[in-house]
């Protein structure tokens, strides 16, 4: 309204001039009628009016933006108020800052990972294409190589489509310290699908991808690798680097934001398939990404690809009968695993934020109650309720600004400090930061909080004036009860997660991780040639490491348990119809002893189980039970259903291992001797007499003795590997715990304030009670009951809300029910204990009221 007045100032002034003239005319008429002459009449009239110009000026001024002026005055006044009450100001700013910091921190992570566009051109049009093999027990899985080429021929909904093998070990040698690099072999179309031009040079072409010679002699580097290993040398292009012993020409360097499939990939090389490699159609270990054509949406693409899948099922019934195709947004596929946890954290921090706001609102109400005197005076001087409400908001603005600024600063530090501690496997972890939208949300939250907090005293103004310091009791009760409810929800959630984590931690992985050192190595095929050469090399390594003093057993395996890598597939038992899905492992004889896996029947592998000798295998007890029940599995035979692979006789049964994770256990394991089924990517596990970490150097040297250019990677104690699997749930639990603690602290302080205030209110009443014979203890109980009544209400509300909300935790709870009684009881007990101690001090004070003082007092 005042804006309109501002724009019509001129017109209003003219109107006023006419009005004043009209007034003067009337007055002059009257004066003349009373008998004055015209001059006297004019002068008297003018005198009676007063200073006309002053009136005009005043009204002109008023139509100015004095709304803004008074707002400015209010803010300045508010600043003054804060300055005069530094403890209140500091408390208020701190609470708001903590709430904003926590929320901004979590939202920054959630936004960067889940919401922010991928750093590619038109990222919304990028999709992941994969296969779901329902029968084999995989809901969604990677794409099949053979399928990809058929998709490429038959599809009509994608501009471009690309295939990537998300694992390729490259040993970089010849320049400085040998290092193993994580690379990805991809089709040339990857770069055109993602539409990312390289920073330097070029990427490989399809021609190079289809040529076996060229495909194994070119490479594209990541920005990070170029910086780290090659000092950002601009002459890198065209240079040849030794990867796995073979010279590769560096064609180009990618930009820093190109991190496909993930941050740890530093090399891209052409994905070449020898002519008959895809005939089996059973290789499903690839990632497929595609770009939707303009005008095609996700549903259309999905429907189209399902038709294509149908065609393939008819063409290749043996392999593709039950293979269905799914098309999903690339971002979703990348971040699906982490989504649940992030939503949980967002929800929890939202509850914490609410608790903080409620606490602050309560604080302001308390302060307002003590200022009722001031408000009565202001109201009697003409201030309207709106005016007073505006004043509250204006006073809260300096608080909100300071709180927001400090909060964002805290959030920045939190990000700097804590993001490096996050699991490295977190998708898009490199992109986490305080982006624009995150800051905008932080500011928005501060504004919202300021308004909410100011509303509390603003709506109570009338009550304030009429009832003075005894006002707003209801409102404060409501606030504290809601705050306690929020706290309870956080306590229960944190408790459930803690319980779940403890259960997870104590899950038996199937082996003994203590005193075991693990490390990974990739064998350069170009150096050691065929399987025979690789096996011999591995045997030498095992022998050499075995001789290190203090080493009790050495094992090698192609996939480390809980190491995050999978190699799985079907094996078929002789005489059985159906294959069984299993983890495929190549090991040496000492593997089980090294890891501490029990041998339950038969024997482990021996040196004599080498290439050319009868094929043997070992199965785990779970597989034995599933396939043979109580019958003896020893002597039975199994094989991988692939042309040329032999039947293998079972010579031993061992304990079952958890390979995928402590919370999942999808498959049993089968083992072949490494000499009979040789792999070039192996992990070594070394059982040591003492602390495994201290053996790292000795083991490294032993390996170096055999081949000084063999890079090792991921050298850590087996306990470290376990910890790594537990990192994500541990972080969730810690964060929730932190939130719950913070909320508990706030709630206890809030409740202390409320009870303290109520006690002061009833001083006189207590005085009377004491005077007529009540005991101090009686008063203590009375006050405690007041506090506990509110706490109990909050507790009840909170428990109910928790029961409803904990359902959403679902998949994140291991062996813990969302309604776990012990956790709820524990949370309730903790809350009541804290509440009790918060109320104790004012209660004691009440019991020691001096009746004479109280009665004589303020009255």
């Amino acid at each position, binding site marked *: 309204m005042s804006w309109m007045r501002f724009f019509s100032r001129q017109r209003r002034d003219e109107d006023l001039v006419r009005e004043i003239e*009209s007034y003067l005319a009337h007055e002059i008429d009257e004066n003349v009628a009373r008998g004055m002459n015209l001059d006297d009449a004019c002068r008297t009239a003018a005198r009676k009016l007063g200073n006309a110009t002053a009136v005009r000026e005043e009204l002109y001024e008023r139509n100015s933006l004095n709304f803004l002026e008074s707002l400015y005055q209010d803010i300045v006044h508010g600043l003054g108020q804060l300055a005069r009450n530094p403890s209140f100001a500091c408390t208020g700013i701190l609470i708001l800052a903590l709430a904003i910091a926590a929320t901004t921190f979590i939202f920054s992570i959630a936004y960067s990972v889940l919401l922010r566009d991928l750093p590619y051109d038109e990222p919304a049009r990028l999709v992941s294409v994969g296969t779901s093999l329902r029968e084999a027990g995989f809901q969604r899985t990677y794409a099949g190589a053979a399928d990809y080429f058929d998709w490429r021929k038959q599809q009509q909904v994608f501009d471009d489509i690309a295939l990537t093998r998300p694992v390729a070990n490259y040993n970089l040698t010849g320049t400085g310290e040998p290092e193993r690099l994580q690379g990805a072999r991809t089709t040339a179309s990857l770069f055109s699908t993602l539409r990312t031009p390289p920073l330097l040079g070029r990427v490989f072409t399809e021609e190079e991808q289809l040529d076996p010679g060229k495909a194994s002699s070119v490479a594209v580097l990541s920005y990070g690798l170029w910086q780290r290993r090659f000092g950002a040398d601009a002459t890198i292009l065209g240079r040849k680097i030794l990867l796995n012993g073979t010279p590769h020409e560096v064609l180009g360097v990618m930009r820093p934001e190109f991190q496909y499939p993930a941050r740890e990939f530093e090399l891209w090389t052409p994905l070449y398939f020898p002519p008959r490699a895809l005939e089996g159609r059973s290789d499903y270990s690839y990632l497929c990404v595609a770009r939707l054509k303009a005008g095609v949406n996700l549903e259309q693409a999905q429907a189209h690809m399902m038709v294509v899948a149908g065609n393939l099922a008819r063409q290749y019934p043996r392999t593709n009968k039950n293979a269905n195709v799914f098309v999903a947004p690339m971002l979703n596929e990348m971040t699906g695993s982490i989504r649940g946890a992030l939503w949980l954290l967002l929800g929890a921090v939202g509850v914490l934020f609410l608790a903080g706001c409620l606490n602050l609102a309560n604080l302001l109400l308390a302060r307002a109650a003590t200022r009722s005197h001031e408000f009565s005076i202001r109201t*009697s001087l003409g201030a309207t309720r709106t005016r007073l409400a505006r004043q509250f908001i204006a006073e809260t603005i300096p608080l909100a600004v300071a709180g927001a600024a400090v909060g964002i600063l805290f959030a920045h530090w939190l990000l700097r400090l804590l993001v490096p501690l996050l699991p490295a496997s977190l998708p898009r972890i490199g992109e986490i930061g305080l982006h624009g939208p995150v800051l905008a949300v932080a500011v928005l939250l501060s504004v919202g909080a300021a308004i909410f907090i100011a509303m509390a005293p603003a709506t109570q103004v009338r009550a304030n004036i009429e009832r003075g310091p005894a006002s707003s009791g209801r409102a404060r009760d409501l606030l504290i009860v809601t705050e306690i409810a929020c706290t309870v929800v956080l306590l229960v959630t944190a408790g459930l997660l803690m319980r779940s984590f403890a259960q997870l931690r104590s899950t038996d992985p199937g082996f003994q991780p203590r005193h075991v050192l693990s490390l990974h190595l990739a064998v350069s095929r170009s150096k050691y040639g065929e399987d025979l050469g690789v096996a011999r090399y591995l045997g030498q390594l095992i022998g050499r490491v075995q001789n290190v003093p203090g080493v009790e057993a050495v094992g090698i395996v192609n996939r480390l348990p809980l190491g995050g890598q999978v190699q799985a597939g079907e094996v078929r038992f002789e005489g059985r119809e159906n294959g069984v899905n299993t983890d495929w492992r190549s090991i040496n004889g000492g593997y089980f002893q090294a890891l501490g896996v029990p041998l339950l029947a038969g024997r482990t592998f021996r040196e004599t189980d080498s290439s050319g000798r009868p094929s043997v295998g070992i199965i785990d007890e779970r597989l034995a039970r599933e396939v043979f029940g109580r019958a003896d599995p020893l002597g039975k035979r199994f094989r991988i259903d692939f042309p040329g692979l032999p039947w293998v006789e079972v010579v031993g049964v061992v304990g079952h291992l958890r390979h995928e994770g402590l919370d999942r256990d999808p498959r049993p394991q089968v083992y072949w001797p490494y000499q009979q089924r040789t792999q070039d990517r192996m992990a070594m596990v070394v059982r040591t007499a003492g602390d495994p970490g201290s053996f790292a150097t000795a083991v490294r040297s032993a390996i170096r003795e055999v081949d000084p250019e063999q890079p090792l990677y991921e050298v850590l104690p087996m306990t470290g590997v376990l910890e790594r699997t537990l990192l994500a749930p541990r972080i969730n639990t810690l964060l929730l715990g932190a939130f719950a603690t913070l909320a508990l602290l706030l709630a206890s302080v809030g409740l202390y304030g409320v009870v303290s205030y109520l006690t002061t209110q009833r001083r006189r009443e207590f005085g009377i009670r004491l005077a007529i014979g009540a005991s101090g203890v009686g008063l203590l109980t009375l006050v405690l009951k007041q506090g506990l009544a509110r706490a109990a209400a909050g507790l009840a509300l909170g428990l109910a809300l928790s029961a409803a909300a904990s359902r959403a935790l679902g998949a994140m709870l291991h062996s813990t029910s969302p309604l776990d009684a012990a956790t709820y009881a524990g949370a309730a007990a903790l809350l009541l204990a804290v509440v009790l101690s918060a109320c104790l001090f004012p209660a004691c004070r009440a019991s020691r009221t001096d009746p004479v003082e109280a009665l004589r007092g303020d009255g």
Partner: protein
Amino acid sequence: MLVLRALVLAPAHGHTIAHLIERSSEDVLQVEHGSLYPALHRLEDQGLVASFWGTSENNRKAKYYRVTPAGRRHLIEERSRWEGLVQAVTRVLGPAME
């Protein structure tokens, strides 16, 4: 409030209002009539009175003001608050006078 009271009976223009206030307070409240206009405009901005141009008794153009329903309600509220305040003050001062 006094302005509203003056207008309750009938719309009037500035000049008349000024005289009404003087007369009804038995000339105790003698203010510069000019200070009336800011008050009138404030009341108008708050929606408690509305203005219109008309012709006065002596055939001159004058800006008239009338009370709005909101204005009437406000008068009743304010009046009771004022009376409450007066009572409170009297109570406080009362015993001291004795």
